C-alpha cells in the first residue's frame, strides 16, 4: 500500500516542480510550487512524519506561498515578458545540474544495513542492533504521541538551537521592516 502511494506522490512532485521552473508567468510558477509542497506534505505523512507533514502544509504551502503571491501581485508581474536565460546559460546549467544530479543520486544507494556493518565492523550486524534511534522513536510515539515524540528532543537536547531560532526570527522581522521602510 505504501509503495504505490509513494510513487504517485513522487510523480506529482517531480512533474509539478518541473512545471514550476518552466512556467513563464510567476503566478503559475507559484501555484505549481504550492502543488509540489502539498504533495511533499502528503509524502511526509506517508513516511511516518505526520506532524512535519501538517507543518509543511501550514507553513510552506500556506504562509510562505501566500507571502510570495502577495509580493508577485504587489509588483503586478503577471504580464511580464519571458525571463528565461538564452541558450549558452541553458547548456551550462544542464551540464552543472547533470553533474550535481549524478553525484546526488548516489544518495539513493544509502542503506542502514551497509552503514551498520561498516560502523560496527561486524559482518552480520543488523541496523536495529547498532542504531537505536528507530526503536526509540517508535517507543516515544507509542508513549507520548506523534507531537510529544518531537517535542521531547526539541525542548531538551535542542533547547539552545530552539532559543536561537527565536533570535533569528526577531532579526528577520526587524530586517524586513527596516528594508521595507527606508528609502534604499
Amino acid at each position, binding site marked *: 500500500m505504501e509503495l504505490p502511494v509513494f510513487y504517485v506522490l513522487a510523480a506529482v512532485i517531480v512533474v509539478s516542480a518541473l512545471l514550476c521552473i518552466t512556467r513563464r508567468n510567476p503566478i503559475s510558477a507559484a501555484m505549481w510550487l504550492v502543488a509540489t509542497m502539498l504533495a511533499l506534505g502528503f509524502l511526509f505523512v506517508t513516511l511516518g512524519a505526520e506532524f512535519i507533514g501538517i507543518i509543511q502544509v501550514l507553513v510552506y504551502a500556506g504562509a510562505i506561498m501566500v507571502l510570495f503571491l502577495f509580493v508577485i501581485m504587489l509588483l503586478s508581474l503577471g504580464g511580464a515578458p519571458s525571463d528565461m536565460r538564452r541558450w549558452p546559460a541553458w547548456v551550462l546549467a544542464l551540464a552543472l*545540474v547533470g553533474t550535481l544530479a549524478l553525484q546526488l543520486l548516489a544518495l539513493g544507494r544509502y542503506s542502514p544495513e551497509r552503514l551498520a556493518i561498516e560502523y560496527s565492523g561486524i559482518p552480520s550486524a543488523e541496523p536495529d542492533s547498532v542504531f537505536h534511534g528507530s526503536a526509540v522513536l517508535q517507543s516515544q510515539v507509542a508513549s507520548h504521541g506523534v507531537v510529544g515524540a518531537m517535542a521531547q528532543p526539541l525542548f531538551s537536547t535542542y533547547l539552545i538551537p530552539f532559543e536561537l531560532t527565536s533570535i533569528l526570527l526577531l532579526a528577520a522581522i526587524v530586517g524586513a521592516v527596516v528594508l521595507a521602510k527606508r528609502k534604499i
Partner: protein
Amino acid sequence: MLLGPSLTLSAILFAIGVAGVLIRRNAIVVFMCVELMLNAVNLTFVALSRAHGVDGQVFVFFVMTVAAAEAAVGLAIILAMFRHDQSIDLRQVNLLKG
C-alpha cells in the same frame, strides 16, 4: 522502508531547484527555486529520521524556521529592488551601492 527511493527523489528535486536558479532571471522565481531546494533537503531529513530516530524531524523544524525568516527578508529585499529600478530582473542587479 522507502529510504532509497526517498533519497533519490530528494536528489532529483534538489537538481530541479538548482536548474531553476540557473535558467531563470526573475528574482522571485529564483527565490521560489531556493525554497524548492530547501524542501528537497527536508525530504532527506524526514526519510533518514525513519531509520535513525526523531532528530531528523527536529532539524526539519529548524530548516522551516530559517526558510520562513529567509522568505520575509528576501521578499523585502526584492521589494526594495523593485522600488529602486522598477524591475526585478537579475541582469539589473550588478551594483552593491544604491
